[in-house]
């Protein structure tokens, strides 16, 4: 498997795709910094979480989305780009036959490609975080606290898990579909579904099942809970919630808060341990989604016929 990881990495690093990725990382970092420069003062963050604001504040006068939002949008695409042609391109170019007639287990091909992808992903996300941290520190003149460093690291890990999930899904499609175009289209379709359509569908379904026309408080709550339950099936939503809790400690709960309580809401950040407690289900959710992708990939690939045509 080490041999496969080594070859895949060498492949990536010399490929145009990787160059594109690095360009993307640079552009993302600059955009994020610009957004923070615009909005961080207006955000008026309490002491101790100012540094995190570099990653979460959006531009105010000029509407530039925050870095964490851009990442949540683009990391799946990077994951897909790393995985959508993993198996089927090797199948159609006839190299898979040769590789699988060597004394290696079939799953080590998937694992090797996956792990190489994770390494590339880590390099990209890591570079981005370091770039923004470095320039951001000079910009705002506030160093991160210990807790903020830990939170950023957590954010890094969750982002890698998230990208890895999409890569796993793309690899699954590359096993399922013989044509590269098909696996790419399906991966993108799923990404669109989970990042946009589900946001439209969830309220529609919830409104149909639990009408709130009467404005009864209990119904409004049930409607909201239903929406959220539907949304929790979306890895995009899981990731967005998780990163919000990790990077914006002011967010205290992910459930519904009625407007009657909101004025009494304390504006002090949640402790690190509390935040982890809140996002723990999200993290395990992301991991189990990846595990499902993998399990299906293994089952399909183990018994698949490898024919060089």
């Amino acid at each position, binding site marked *: 498997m080490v*041999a496969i990881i080594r070859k895949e990495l060498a492949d990536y690093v010399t490929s145009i795709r990787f160059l594109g990725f690095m360009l993307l990382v640079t552009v993302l970092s600059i955009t994020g910094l610009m957004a923070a420069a615009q909005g961080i003062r207006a955000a008026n963050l309490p002491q101790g979480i100012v540094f995190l604001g570099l990653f979460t504040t959006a531009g105010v006068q000029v509407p530039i989305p925050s870095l964490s939002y851009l990442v949540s949008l683009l990391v799946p695409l990077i994951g897909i780009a790393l995985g959508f042609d993993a198996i089927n391109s090797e199948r159609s170019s006839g190299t898979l036959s*040769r590789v699988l007639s060597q*004394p290696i287990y079939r799953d080590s091909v998937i694992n090797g490609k996956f792990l190489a992808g994770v390494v590339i992903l880590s390099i990209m996300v890591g570079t981005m975080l370091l770039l923004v941290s470095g320039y951001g520190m000079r910009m705002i003149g506030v160093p991160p606290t210990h807790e903020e460093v830990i939170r950023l690291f957590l954010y890094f890990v969750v982002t890698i898990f998230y990208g890895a999930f999409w890569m796993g899904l793309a690899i699954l499609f590359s096993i399922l579909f013989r044509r590269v175009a098909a696996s790419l289209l399906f991966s993108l379709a799923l990404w669109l579904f989970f990042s946009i359509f589900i946001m439209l569908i969830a309220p529609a379904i919830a409104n149909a099942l639990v009408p709130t026309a009467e404005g009864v408080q209990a119904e409004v709550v049930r409607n909201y809970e239903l929406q959220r339950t539907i949304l929790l099936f979306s890895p995009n939503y899981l990731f967005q919630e998780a990163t919000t809790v990790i990077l914006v400690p002011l967010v205290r709960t992910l459930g519904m808060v009625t407007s009657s309580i909101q004025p009494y809401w304390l504006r002090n950040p949640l402790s690190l341990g509390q935040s982890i407690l809140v996002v723990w289900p999200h993290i395990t959710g992301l991991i189990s989604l990846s595990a499902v992708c993998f399990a299906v990939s293994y089952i399909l690939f183990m018994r698949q*016929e490898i024919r060089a045509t």
Partner: protein
Amino acid sequence: MSETLAISAQGLTKRYDGVTVVDHLNLQVKANEVFGLLGPNGAGKTTTILMMLGLTEPAEGSVSVLGFSPTREPLKVKRQVGYLPERVGFYENMTARENLRFIADLNGISYNEANQRTDEVLKMVGLTESEIMEALGPKRKIEKTVGKFSRGMKQRLGIAEVLIKRPRLVFLDEPTAGLDPKGINQLLDLIAALPKAGTTVVLSSHQLYQVQRVCHSIGILAKGKMVIQGAIDKLGREALAGGRFQIEVETENPGEKLIKVIRGLKGVLGVEAKGNVLSISTEADLRRQVSKAVVENNYPLIQMKIQEFSLDDIYMKYFREE
């Protein structure tokens, strides 16, 4: 059996969506010989090879490759077996050397050893640096990527890759396809030399006149069934002496019992009943034994015909589509 067998398959069967493409194949390949798996396109040659490599699972039957089962012990088989696929493909952005090194890496061959073996096999197949340079033009000095290789060069690189693990057995699927006559001859010379180095060769082809000169034994496959199998010199002799026979016997209402008796005769390969006519295929002229069996079982012997097939006839019969 005194000679060791590299491959032995019993009742090997493969179906795709209910269509049988390899049908109860029995196959023996002796160690240190070149075995030609011959047959027209679509006969099931590639499928048979894939089953022997564990790259697809048989529906029925069993196969033993160098004493191991490809489905249950794939790694033990693949450690000692090389495979050149029908449409060989390489990582086109890498050089010949890099491609070979990757395969060596997958086989757990150390870096120094891999370098040494790479030199060795590239020399064997005629793809040394100067030869590559000659083929691709002297303009670029450094190693050339495989993407620029001609079909023949890729085919030779495929052989080099198969040999780098020093296999005891190699499967070459249509190795001569797409080569010019000179290339074919070079390749066949290379293949012919392998048994002396201790490597058994199974090569498939749909052009048997092209490859038969290097084969010690052949098996002819048609529609998934083995039509004829044996040492080529013996088949040749048989062909000269009259070859295989087809005896047709006309009688009245032949029963299961009679068919069973005839099937039990020594040298009978198969019996088929069509109405009152029994078609019996045999290895030798068994007219006397067959007629005796018919009469002794109280059936009338109305008519009897014998037809001879030479190896050439068999070739013609199954390769007419070509």
